[in-house]
């Protein structure tokens, strides 16, 4: 397999090129990523058949995507941060309209103050929207997720939009080698072009987006809930198919060095890379530490996390996001909910790191680990702590 050296943005654009979607609608809000700029090159050079709709706002971007997807098209877009905030209304409607749009998000900090650098809070706010939400650790994963997201979202048991996260700058602007998937491989994997059974069809007129009053609204929302539940099985099947075709094995919740681990880092996205290196170094000092990585954040595979936590004395959550006034970090709240009532209850230390793109180095993981272990040894939990904050 030939490898190419690309930024995360380019890796995602190359994946979109392989898929050759019918419609891409996007807007370059601040912060913009290069994903759609690269894709525009493919359009200009005739390398894709896509209609590229250069809308006048992110709100219109997601609106055009919902329109196109409702007409039966395969649709891709990308955004981040302020763009996500502006399209938030339509993000929810995309899920309830059951439009399997794929959106790459170069995860970036939310204003204010305006920042533009890496942070995952933007995509964490999709939590309650009905979207399937994936996070990539490196550029290969960002590339692969972009393609397999279409297969998950368009599955007739799912029909939900999928967000594909890659950390802003840390992945989006950093060059790594990836094995690209070709057009033929992508379309073979997806089973050809999208076939939408229910859509705007002039031969079978259908109304979509009706007013649901209290007598039907809950049932309509429950359909999104049920689709999220059904997606669990589909995600596992799609990952398994991906491994068969491309040899890269993915799980909703990944583990590293967990077999004999007494302590573990739990994180998402590119932080997992730093955690792995820190774990390798700590292991040479005899520390029994491993990694739990959340690849699929929604639906949340809580039981997979619980299984990995069974023999742990202490769990260290590290997340690049935050919730003001909440009972912990956004991710760590999910972890605690998953563990509750299972009889698996490791001590926990919760860290928020790297907001607005602040660097968190390998040595920081050592210090966070030692600080947590010290507390664990005295039987204490450590509440959420913003690592590296000047106070």
């Amino acid at each position, binding site marked *: 397999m030939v490898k190419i050296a690309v930024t995360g943005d380019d890796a995602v654009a190359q994946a979109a090129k392989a898929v050759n979607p019918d419609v891409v609608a996007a807007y370059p809000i601040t912060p913009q990523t290069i994903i759609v700029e690269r894709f525009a090159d493919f359009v200009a050079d005739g390398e894709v058949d896509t209609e590229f709709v250069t809308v006048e706002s992110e709100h219109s971007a997601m*609106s055009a995507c919902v329109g196109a997807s409702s007409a039966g098209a395969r649709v891709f877009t990308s955004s981040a941060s302020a763009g996500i905030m502006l399209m938030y209304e339509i993000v929810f409607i995309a899920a309830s309209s059951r439009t399997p749009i794929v959106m790459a998000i170069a995860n970036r900090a939310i204003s204010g103050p305006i920042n533009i650098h890496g942070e995952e809070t933007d995509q964490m706010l999709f939590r309650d929207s009905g979207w399937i939400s994936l996070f990539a650790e490196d550029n290969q994963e960002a590339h692969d997720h972009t393609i397999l997201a279409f297969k998950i979202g368009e599955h007739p048991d799912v029909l939900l939009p999928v967000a594909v996260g890659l950390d802003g700058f840390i992945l989006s602007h950093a060059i790594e080698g990836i094995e690209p998937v070709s057009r033929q491989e992508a379309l073979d994997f997806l089973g050809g072009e999208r076939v939408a059974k229910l859509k705007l069809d002039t031969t079978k007129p259908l109304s979509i987006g009706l007013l649901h009053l209290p007598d039907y609204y809950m049932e309509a929302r429950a359909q999104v809930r049920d689709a999220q539940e059904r997606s669990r099985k589909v995600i596992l099947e799609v990952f398994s198919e991906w491994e068969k075709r491309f040899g890269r094995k993915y799980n909703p919740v990944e583990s590293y060095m967990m077999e004999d681990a007494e302590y573990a880092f739990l994180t998402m996205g590119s932080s997992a890379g730093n955690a792995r290196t820190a774990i390798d170094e700590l292991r040479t000092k005899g520390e029994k530490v491993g990694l739990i990585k959340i690849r699929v954040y929604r639906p949340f595979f809580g039981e997979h996390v619980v299984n990995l936590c069974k023999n742990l004395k202490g769990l260290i959550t590290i997340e690049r996001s935050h919730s003001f006034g909440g009972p912990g970090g956004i991710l760590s709240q999910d972890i605690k909910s998953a563990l509750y009532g299972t009889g698996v209850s490791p001590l926990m230390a919760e860290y928020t790191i790297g907001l607005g793109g602040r660097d968190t180095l390998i040595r920081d993981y050592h210090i966070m680990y030692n600080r947590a272990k010290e507390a664990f040894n005295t039987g204490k939990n450590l509440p959420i702590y913003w690592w590296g904050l000047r106070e």
Partner: protein
Amino acid sequence: MSIELPKYKLKDLLDKPIFFSGGHRLCAGCAAGTMARQVTMAFDKPTMIVNATGCLEVASTIYPFSAWEVPWLHVAFENVAAVASGIEAAIKAMGRKGTYKEGETDIIAFGGDGGTYDIGFQALSGALERGHDFLYILYDNGAYMNTGIQRSGGTPFGASTTTSPAGSVIPGKHQFRKPITDIVAAHRIPFVATASPAYPEDLIAKVRAGLDVRGPAFLHIEASCNRGQRFDPSKSIEYVRLATETCIHPLYAVINGKYQLSRPSQRIADDPSKKLPVEDYLKLEGRWRHFFKPTKRTDLIEIFQKDIDERWEELLKKTK
């Protein structure tokens, strides 16, 4: 591309199928329903409709019922032009790949005055600039009637609404209606027109022409609301006709940048004695009751008349 308005006779139109069925829950006498029926009479090929949030959307599609007999989509309030852009792009791309087989398909986007003059304006302007092939229909009843009669950029001067109430100090809305048709025409799109359900042959011809044009088309339809404008529901069509007869809502088309009056307004241009004073219209609707009671506010009526006169004169200059 030369654009001709088709010439319909009322008698011929009676045989046209209608794709907006009865049983919807629009109010008695609502001109939006009349307008919707007339619009669908222009259909002659596969057609899809996108509807902004508003009375027409809410009252025609209360789940599990729909009054629409063509594919219909509602997403939100402020984005109908963007949604239509996406549908048009999808049909183009899928047509190229051979996965869309219905051939040429007409797309209509419906927005009310709030969804067009105000919150949907950016999406509309963007879609016009990008040149998507669709017809945008503004049905204008002069306020946010669906949400409870709040003032919009399309509310006329002096009208009392729930957010521009006629009080003891301020006599209703103190701004004039945004000249939306001129603003849209300034985008230099091939077809822009005004219409009224009081003149169905003209309205249906303009819908057909707007759909046949390649690229964006825009139609501004006056659609009265007896609840929000406060008048007898049996007078809906009579009053929208008066809006044209007073030149408050003149009928014209801007085809490839060239303004031309439509017959009802041309008659007034030819014989100015046919131009009725705005007072004839204002006195009939409760939203201007404070112009007449407890004392007649001639000053306000004059301000209203002066604005309409100026706009009419400007239009006449453009059509010469």
